[in-house]
């Protein structure tokens, strides 16, 4: 059932052109995030001079930021360093600052302008995508995993285990999330990891409820009762039948969850509780731009727009998935 089911879903999904666009967008973002140091870096890929071949960018990647001893401290972008140089498309690092170019608008030197420390915005946006993508995926992965496990246990065993777990779910749902987030961030110190953990810990109840609901519903179904009747009480078999059914709504919820996680992270950065400087995150750049909103439009519009596009992409995908998995539309095939 599984293989055929997913192929059907995929076929239905592909029909939605907007969603496919969203998927392409997300793939592009993932690639950008993964290759960020290769796209924006102040070191060249390759530098040939005096008969010697250097690979400064890769050297730095492999050796954790170190430089060739002969090239230490040299800014190879300067004209005085002769030789063959090949630079990445954006020849700036996300943290290098130039106090002579504070808050400048987009120009030929800095394609998207600079921020309040003279850092290139394009480079920072590229690196910022890492935060968005990784937080999205990892946090959601964590809470989906937790949710599935706990939800299955609650739904399968029922009885007092279910009651205890349901109470825990209620407690977490009633708990003011923001308060929990602030406290955890205060205890652990704000960082990428803390934010992911916090979102993971506070969001699993939603998934757990879905999974639990599916278990409760399917437990009563004929095929399960039949299996039990003939003596196949193997919980593993039941899991194999029930979980895939539950996965559909979970997947949809997870996709929307990625979008909302990105939004939560941006909001937290906006309030000052996100990633540590100088690591860029789109929400952080946006929050820093508040001071200059009336003349530095690039610092406000560009990150805001990037967040918007990313969230839209994920939402489109989630939406199309939901439609694609809708049994009514599948039946028509």
């Amino acid at each position: 059932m599984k293989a055929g089911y997913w192929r059907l879903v995929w076929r239905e999904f592909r029909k939605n052109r907007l969603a496919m666009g969203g998927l392409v967008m997300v793939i592009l973002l993932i690639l950008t995030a993964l290759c960020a140091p290769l796209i924006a870096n102040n070191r060249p890929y390759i530098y040939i001079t005096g008969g010697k071949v250097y690979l400064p960018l890769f050297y730095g990647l492999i050796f954790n930021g170190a430089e060739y001893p002969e090239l230490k401290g040299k800014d190879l972008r300067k004209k005085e360093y002769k030789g063959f140089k090949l630079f990445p498309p954006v020849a700036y690092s996300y943290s290098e600052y130039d106090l002579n170019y504070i808050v400048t608008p987009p120009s030929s030197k800095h394609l998207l302008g600079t921020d309040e420390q003279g850092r290139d915005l394009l480079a920072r946006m590229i690196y910022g995508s890492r935060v968005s993508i990784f937080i999205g995926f990892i946090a959601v992965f964590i809470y989906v995993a937790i949710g599935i496990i706990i939800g299955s246990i609650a739904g399968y065993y029922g009885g007092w285990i279910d009651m205890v777990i349901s109470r825990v779910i209620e407690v977490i749902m009633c708990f003011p999330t923001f308060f929990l987030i602030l406290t955890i961030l205060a205890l652990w110190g704000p960082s990428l990891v803390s934010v992911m953990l916090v979102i993971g810990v506070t969001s699993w109840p939603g998934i757990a409820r879905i999974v639990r609901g599916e278990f409760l519903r399917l437990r009563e179904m004929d095929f399960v009762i039949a299996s039990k009747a003939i003596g196949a009480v193997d919980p593993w078999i039941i899991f194999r039948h029930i979980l895939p059914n539950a996965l559909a709504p979970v997947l949809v919820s997870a996709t929307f969850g990625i979008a909302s996680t990105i939004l939560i992270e941006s909001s937290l950065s906006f309030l000052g509780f996100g990633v540590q400087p100088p690591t860029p995150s789109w929400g952080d750049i946006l929050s820093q731009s508040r001071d200059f909103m009336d003349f530095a439009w690039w610092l406000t519009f560009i990150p805001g727009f990037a967040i918007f596009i990313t969230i839209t992409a994920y939402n489109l995908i989630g939406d199309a998935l939901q439609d694609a998995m809708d049994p009514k539309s599948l039946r028509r095939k």
Partner: protein
Amino acid sequence: MTMTRLFNHANYMTELKIHIRLLSAISGLLFFFTGCSGIFPPKDPYTLNMYLGAEPDTLNPIIATDASSHAINLRIYETLVDRDYDTLDVIPMLAERWEISHDKLRFRFFLKKGVYWSDGVEFTADDVVYSYNKIMDPKVASAQLKVYYIDIKSCRKINKYTVEFLYARPYYLALIFCGGMPIVPKHIFDDGTNFNAQKNGRFPIGTGPYRFEQWDTGKKIVLVRNGLYRGKKPVIRKVVYKIIFDPSAAFQMLKKGDIDVMGLREIEWERQTNSERFHKNFYKLKYYLSTYSYIGWNEARGFFADRRVRLAMTLLLNRKDILDKLLFGLGKIVVGPFYIFGKSYDHDIKPWPYDPAKAEALLEKAGWADHDGDGVLDKDGKKFSFTFTISSGSRFAERLGSIMKENLSKAGIRMDINKFEWAVFLQKIQGRNFDATSLGWSDPDFQDDPYQIWHSSQIKGGSNFIGFSNREADRIIERARLEFNEKKRIRMYHRFQEILHYEQPYTFLFTTPALVAVSRRFTNVKVHTRGLNFLEWQVKKTE
């Protein structure tokens, strides 16, 4: 066939109706509101609109700790003495004169007669003694004040208009301290209720030029002229402190004219307030108060116990560049903790320059070099990697940190930045749980005494959280407290500054001026040493 057409037609009509209704509703509203601005009454020219970035907790001067309450209470409450706005000399306020005993331990104040609280009751020595007792009362939440008056043995009433403070030890600032003690009306507060929650914290009664009228929680606090004030009536009849949480919104309100006075940030001063329109409507005033920023190196942590390392850190920071570019040159580099325009500041001491080469040499002498060739300095197997702890509210600290990180990494030092929410940050600092941090000190009263920050007795539990301990400095600080001769004291403080310059417990950064925009609705707006005083402002006559 008929049905389908009916179906379509009906739907079309429904849709259209909905759309039309919606559209007319929206345009009607828009019309209405924009047209509305005509019916709003004009602003009162004798009202001053001030900006508060945070709501005060309480207006009880004995319990309040935040800057907002102090700003407001300054206009409502008075103290025994005041400081002249320009010379900073001690001048009479509620006391008409005073006598200091020869041993400098007794301070006798003779109160002005015929001074009334704004509810009509006369101000007497009972109020002063009551206030002192409340400050020192363990059940009253006044720890921040108790610290200042710990050297006072007693405060007693001699007669209805005379009060005497007895000090345990002589202290050159004693007059200013006991003379500047906040005084609350006894007949209001002494009603048997819990002082900390006394309702007059929300409804202050004072003797000053303004009296409290209203506190609209979360929105504004309003003061009006005190009819019973004995001094010259200010021209401004009403002061409205508007509570605005978002500084960028506040800036917009300033430009729009909804507030009249606001402190600007450097970038706003340089880049966002230069239009002709702005200059036509606002004064831009700049003045230096006694405040400075610094980077503090925790000497209890291995790295910074060595003076050479601390000095190297200072040499690795291009302070001039930061000042010129990040702060647009609005400020001055400082080398010590004293007010730069005050007498205690030693202008002969020049700031350490930006010198990475010399820094490297110093670090090497201290044993830090890249022995294992990984690009990071190390010593005895330990890498030079530390954490810079800052509060999430401080943009300047964040930018400073980013710059430091870049500079230090070029020198082979790894630095991580940890941003914490203010409450957590404070706890870390007070728990001495940090490697390095950046903060500032501000001294609105221009008192020079370095005891609380630099004396070694204050390392545990006091404000000397970087752990600076130097015997000569301690001796100077202690002796200066007893030195009533200003010239001698200044010489001592100069020597103290030399020690600080040599030891570099802080990397002293900058003193930055207050950058204030004031609406040109007001005239006679003058800059004094202590800043601005709207009691003297006049209102421009409108044509």
